[in-house]
């Protein structure tokens, strides 16, 4: 269930966009969500407490590395930006095996209950499953429900974005080509659930392999930002026409990304 951080403030998410990362290959969706939350300095507005997510606690992942305070983070939290009418879920722990459909059911009902305008699913796909034509060129793809596709067709095909829809795979059931997202976590089934429930949804993904996936996350976040206009990296004039504001010069990497490969090797090994 969703538990607001501050029960006194009644919150309405009507008309907001919900960004959900899928636990996918390289954890790219979750890393991209981290970048968005960190760079936009988003505030946590609530928690998701569900028996389908394994437990996890830690110290503040977005704090300064030298900070010596304790701001607890749990397995699945919700961040919001009133300015951008945006809510981002960040999931830090894997699903319990067999419980993913239970979570999907809860999530789709939560989306409808809160009247979110659209759902953006961040995901990734196994690079070794690419078709020949996908081996070269941009590694970013999207797939969206027909209503979002119609609404955004011009933007997606525009020179600035040049987004490529994910190529379908012909299968025995569907010779035309159906959605094939190996390694994408719940992205495919969540997208299909949304299509059935008439929730406007879009899956954005990159092809990648497991490893240091920070750059894949940057690619995903960068493309999403081009479409949704969330962070402006270029300096620009303020409303008065004189003051220059520079919201961010680059993506702000959270301190939780440190030590990707663990503790440094103990040099006493080599004595």
């Amino acid at each position: 269930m969703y538990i607001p951080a501050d029960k006194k403030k009644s919150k309405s998410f009507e008309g907001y966009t919900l960004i959900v990362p899928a636990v996918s290959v390289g954890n790219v969706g979750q890393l991209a969500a981290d970048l968005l939350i960190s760079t936009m300095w988003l505030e946590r507005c609530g928690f998701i407490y569900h028996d389908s997510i394994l437990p996890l606690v830690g110290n503040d992942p977005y704090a300064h590395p030298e900070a010596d305070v304790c701001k607890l983070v749990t397995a699945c939290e919700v961040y919001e930006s009133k300015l951008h009418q945006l809510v981002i879920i960040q999931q830090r722990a894997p699903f319990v095996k067999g419980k993913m459909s239970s979570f999907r059911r809860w999530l789709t009902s939560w989306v409808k209950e809160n009247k979110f305008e659209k759902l953006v699913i961040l995901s990734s796909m196994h690079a070794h499953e690419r078709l020949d034509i996908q081996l070269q060129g941009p590694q970013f793809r999207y797939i969206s429900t027909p209503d979002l596709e119609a609404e955004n067709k011009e933007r997606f095909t525009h020179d600035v974005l040049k987004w490529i829809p994910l190529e379908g795979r012909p299968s025995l059931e569907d010779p035309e080509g159906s959605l094939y997202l190996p390694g994408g976590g719940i992205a495919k089934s969540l997208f299909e659930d949304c299509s059935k429930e008439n929730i406007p949804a879009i899956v954005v993904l990159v092809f990648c392999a497991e490893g240091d996936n920070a750059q894949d996350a940057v690619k995903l976040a960068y493309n999403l930002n081009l479409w949704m206009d969330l962070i402006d990296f270029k300096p620009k004039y303020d409303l008065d026409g004189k003051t220059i504001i520079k919201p961010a010069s680059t993506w702000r990497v959270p301190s939780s990304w440190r030590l990707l490969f663990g503790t440094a090797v103990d040099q006493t090994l080599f004595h």
Partner: protein
Amino acid sequence: MATFFGEILPVISRAVDDDDDDESFENLETYVKIKWKKEAQEEMELTKDKKLQVNAFVLAVGPAATGFTQTYVTHKNYEIIGAMFCGMKEDDVNTFGQMSPTDKTCYIYRKCDYPSALVCECNYDIRPEYAHSFVNQLMSCLNLCEGHVVIFGSTFTSEYKSDVPTSDMNPPFMRALKTASFLGTPMAPYLEQPNVATGLPAQMLTYCHIHKLNAVLYMCYTDSIHLDFATLKTFQPLIESTPVKYMREENKKASETLKKIVDLHTKHSTLYM
């Protein structure tokens, strides 16, 4: 994926494919069962919300944490009022009779002269998948609104990531995390990013955090596979932590008890004796 030596290995990925729902954990909600002694159940029936009023709660998870609480907290003036069982059916009978520190049990103790102080010593290896059910069942019987919670756990230094090499950290060492409602300062440094705690201790702390309870988690990082004296000693200063200091009495035989516990664990681990 082909390796450098030419062998083909399966690709390991944390991404779980959708069709994984076929394998599922057996009876998530019913595998862990809480059973209370008759007197405790009767007490719960008498209260407005059918819960025991608790002002001080200690959850000890694992042999090191339970060894500590058995030596310094529950050794005197405590009675068993309940237990958690794994894999038991509703009508199975159990006498709460297994009392050795190394037995796989999970008993809930209450202080005889301070009835709102409870200690849960969990020596079971509760899998993270069952942690949600464990905490929900336990918390559905306890009213902790005004209370203090402390959680003791232990894990290996191999799980700990830092700039400093592990040998320089002088294991075993203690780290802490606290909920926002807890306004004091824990008796150990905060667990630094990117380290996290998982499993039952994490589930309990999450529950406390979400429900705005005062709670602290103390996690001992040890490099010893089996319980040893040094690990138990690392917990020792925590007898002054809130609320443990209000729930315990002096144990003059503490060193002997600790030695007995370590010996019991060592019996299973030595190859050559």
